[in-house]
């Protein structure tokens, strides 16, 4: 029975008015909720990708080749270094940041039909370093294979070599020679198209400098200036080595990332603006619908604070519910984007929460500013005119 219930408190009555007001305008509430939720989900998805993109894109961009050089210090006059020193230097690079690395030892050799540059490499490392090479035949997959070679496409054409052919490699000065099978012909679009590749150990024997390398090229995942820090650390630990990022490639990575991030920020601002306009339009319609109700509330004693409080609480309830749903949906959307663009999941980072939450709620509040002003401008004497 109604008479047996206790009196509601001021707060209880406020909440009762608030929720009944929302309930009676389900459709408008649903539209506002959906607008906020969609806006927040896109912002969340973009924020998730934004904060994960550096790592993801950096790995993606690392498929375009080496971006880090380790070699003997130019001032020392040395043209090579011990391969063990090179390996020790590589250990300084955190394993999770090292995509691939290969030592290089170069020398001039004579093939059956002419001279060529021989490059001794670590094939498994080279494959990770240069996944963009187009290889006819197959890659040499182990570092101990001393019977096979890979030949650059241009050199193969000049020397009339095909996959499966054998080629004699000879060093003119020491007379060392070895017959090798062409396992793959590589098209790189660069100087490597004119080189012949063998495993480092074999190259050392052919060129008469076993255990030596000219330099090491590496592909390192980097963000911002951490690659410079890594180079400095390496040079501190190995004073005789020259370690440096390959500027052109590193800077390209950074530029592409910056542009993508900028684009995402612009899209986020546009989405927030559209959401704000959509919510604002709905709220203006709500205020128009409630003109008499607001006029009545003022006539029977509601002050401006009460009217503002009621409106802001209504929009905050819808806003918080919409943003909460948007956060969940946004994370799912981020996974879809991650799979579609990077082929991997997007990691949720705590920083996404405030980044998505605050602008979305601010957009909802900004959207309420004009309607609240309209509500405050309602003159009871005018809207309650009995005609």
């Amino acid at each position, binding site marked *: 029975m109604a008479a047996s219930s206790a009196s509601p408190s001021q707060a209880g009555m406020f909440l009762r008015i608030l929720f009944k007001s929302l309930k009676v305008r389900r459709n408008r509430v649903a539209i506002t909720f959906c607008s906020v939720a969609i806006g927040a989900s896109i912002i969340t998805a973009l924020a998730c990708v934004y904060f994960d993109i550096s790592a993801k894109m950096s790995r993606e961009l690392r498929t375009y080749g080496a971006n880090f050089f380790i070699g003997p210090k130019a001032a020392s006059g040395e043209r090579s270094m011990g391969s063990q020193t090179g390996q020790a230097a590589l250990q300084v690079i955190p394993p999770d940041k090292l995509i691939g690395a290969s030592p290089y030892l170069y020398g001039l050799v004579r093939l059956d039909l002419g001279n060529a540059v021989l490059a001794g490499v670590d094939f498994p490392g080279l494959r990770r370093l240069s996944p963009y090479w187009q290889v006819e035949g197959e890659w040499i997959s182990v570092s101990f294979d001393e019977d096979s070679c890979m030949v650059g496409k241009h050199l193969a054409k000049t020397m009339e070599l095909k996959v499966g052919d054998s080629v004699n490699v000879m060093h003119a000065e020491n007379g060392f020679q070895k017959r090798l099978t062409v396992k793959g012909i590589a098209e790189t679009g660069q100087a490597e198209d004119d080189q012949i590749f063998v495993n480092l150990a074999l190259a050392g024997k052919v060129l008469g400098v076993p255990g030596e390398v000219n330099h090491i090229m590496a592909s390192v995942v980097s963000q911002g200036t951490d690659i410079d820090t890594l180079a400095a650390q390496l040079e501190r630990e190995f004073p005789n080595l020259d370690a440096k990022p390959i500027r052109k490639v590193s800077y390209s990575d950074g530029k592409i990332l910056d542009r993508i991030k900028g684009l995402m920020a612009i899209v986020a601002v546009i989405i927030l603006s559209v959401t704000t306009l959509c919510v604002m339009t709905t709220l203006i319609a709500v205020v128009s619908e409630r003109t008499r109700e607001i006029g009545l509330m003022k006539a*029977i*004693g509601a002050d401006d604070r009460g009217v503002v409080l009621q409106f802001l609480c209504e929009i905050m309830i819808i806003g918080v519910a919409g943003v909460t749903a948007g956060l969940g949906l946004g994370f799912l959307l981020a996974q879809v984007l991650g799979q579609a663009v990077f082929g991997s999941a997007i990691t949720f980072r705590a920083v996404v929460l405030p980044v998505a939450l605050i602008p979305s709620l601010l957009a909802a509040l900004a959207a309420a500013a004009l309607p609240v002003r309209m509500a405050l401008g309602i003159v009871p004497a005018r809207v309650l005119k009995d005609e």
Partner: protein
Amino acid sequence: MQKIVLETVGLTKRFGNVTPLDGIDMQVREGEWVAIMGPSGSGKTTMLNILSCLDTLSEGKYILDGIDTSQVSEKERVVVRREKIGLVFQQFHLVPYLTALENVMLAQYYHGMIDRDDAIEVLNRVGLSHRYDHLPSQLSGGEQQRVCIARALINQPAIILADEPTGNLDESNEQIILDFFKELHAEGRTIVLVTHNPELAEFADRTVRLHHGKVVQHAA
């Protein structure tokens, strides 16, 4: 001699070149029932808006229960409205999504003191003991007007200002509301009522007739 609850001195309202109220002097004593009558455009509605503190005057004075409302700020006018005035509208103006009881408690809420038992008692008084939990859309016109009157009475206002309270009602409901106003008057409530209806004005202690914004007749 009863105290003066409402007094206007040279009350004038101007909208640009138009002067819908021009130097109105009027007094209403405690427990008095005054009817304001006049043809359309005579300034009745403007007068009621100013008396109910929903509008401001351009010149003169309006003193309500000892407060000179022409000297108070908008914020203070809200407080005067909330604490001193009970408004009864021709079109009832109930909040459509609140029940009859909640509509009455709404006035208590803005007054800062919610008492459900008091609200129920007032609803019982207007004959709606079985309709507390009904929404306005589930009530007849007469019932809605009774909720409106209950809302006007709930905070024990110094004065009840009613604008054509029977204007939207059929004859039987008109009679109920009229009887109710008589009852309130008998209790000693101060009532100012704007009406076209001479039958309603007939029961007032006094009739103030307006014409072109001026008082043309004070009749007992």
